[in-house]
């Protein structure tokens, strides 16, 4: 039986990829941000995941305005990063697990989430930057991956509630998989930020900290926000909170906070990190495999 270990939710600002490549972790601008990650890596190492399910939003590398899926699920044997046109270095390809992917897809469609399935899928910085934060300097990723892309480019976006429900359905699907697998969930993006217009640079620290607290305690409360509420309170790109909600939704057991970090600014963004442990009754997360 597959076990859901927990979730890591983290910002995915592209500049982080550049900072990693230039080894700026100790630079005064970057240090308060990068200092949040060793504790996350230690926890991830301690729970020994072999599959990562990642909720992220593509920014045009794979999906453009010609065809824009609301929810797209990877079913590929391999996922490659590619030149996004803004100078961040590409990372090695990720191994997929098509059997696991198709199991999740079947369960999701049975659960009335009519997702787009992708046997070929490029993954952009929103997927690769969090992976690099968890496994820096890797040449061979130690996990197989299942990317799930949520549209936050072209309005209308799926509502926060819908994304939370998607996460719950993914959680049920993972637990229904009859293989021994240790699954870590990743939710990327956020927290408050706005990249465009006269309101660019908008940050809402109070709202962000409330979200980080409620995500642990009462995610249903966050799922009641509308997309427009999130834009108003957290900025246009603050809607990426839906990826955090989806990741939280996938945690089916008792959830507790392991670690968090919050720092303003990285580029235009309030950067957040949350590490959540999931304890199912049947199989405690830290039990030996």
């Amino acid at each position, binding site marked *: 039986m597959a076990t859901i270990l927990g979730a890591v939710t983290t910002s995915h600002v592209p500049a982080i990829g550049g900072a990693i490549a230039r080894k700026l972790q100790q630079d005064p601008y970057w240090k308060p941000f990068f200092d949040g990650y060793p504790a996350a890596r230690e926890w991830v190492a301690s729970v020994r995941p072999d599959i990562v399910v990642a909720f992220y939003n593509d920014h045009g590398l794979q999906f453009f305005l010609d065809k824009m899926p609301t929810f797209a699920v990877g079913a590929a044997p391999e996922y490659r990063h590619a030149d996004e046109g803004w100078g961040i270095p590409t990372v090695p390809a990720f191994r997929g697990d098509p059997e696991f992917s198709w199991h999740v897809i079947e369960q999701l469609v049975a659960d009335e989430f009519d997702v787009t399935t992708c046997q070929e899928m490029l993954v952009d910085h929103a997927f690769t930057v969090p992976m690099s934060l968890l496994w820096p300097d890797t040449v061979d990723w130690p996990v197989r991956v299942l990317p799930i892309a949520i549209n936050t480019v072209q309005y209308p976006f799926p509502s926060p509630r819908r994304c939370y429900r998607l996460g719950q359905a993914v959680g049920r699907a993972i637990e229904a998989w009859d293989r021994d697998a240790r699954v870590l969930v990743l939710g990327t993006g956020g927290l408050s930020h706005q990249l465009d217009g006269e309101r660019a640079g908008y940050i809402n620290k109070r709202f962000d900290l409330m979200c980080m607290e409620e995500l642990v305690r009462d995610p249903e409360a966050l799922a009641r926000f509308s997309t427009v509420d999130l834009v108003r309170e957290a900025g246009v790109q603050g809607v990426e909170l839906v990826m955090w909600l989806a990741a939280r939704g996938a945690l089916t057991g008792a959830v507790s906070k392991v670690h968090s970090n919050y720092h303003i600014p990285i580029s235009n963004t*309030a950067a957040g990190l949350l590490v959540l442990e999931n304890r199912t009754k049947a199989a405690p997360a830290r039990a030996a495999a």
Partner: protein
Amino acid sequence: MALDKPYLDIPGTTIFDADQARRGYHLNQFCMSLMKAENRARFKANERAYLDEWPMTEDQKQAVLARDLNRCIALGGNIYFLAKIGATDGRSFQQMAGSMTGMTEQEYRDMMLAGGRSVEGNRHVGEDGDAQAHRQPQGRAGGQRA
């Protein structure tokens, strides 16, 4: 039936909705072409000629040539795609974002280091925050205040 747009009362903010996606389709397609290194080189060599290969409006082409990102957005551009132009020019996302506020690069960077733009007065049109129309441009890069 007109689209429901419950977000029009958020100041200094454009939601990339269906109308924008239709208006800006070719502008955004041009931007996406800059993901390829050889296209970036061709664009840099002759911007006007490269733009003329795309079925964009003259207004859109002029906005790109002027690097007027607010105008590009008004004409259907999406910031994620427009960012490819900035990257082609060697500008960071922060420089691009700042350019839309009328602030100098330093002014914008300082605002972010000080905790970012305040939410106060910037949630609804008609309040008095710094993102409101009557408070533009916000900095010295925007020239004389009207």
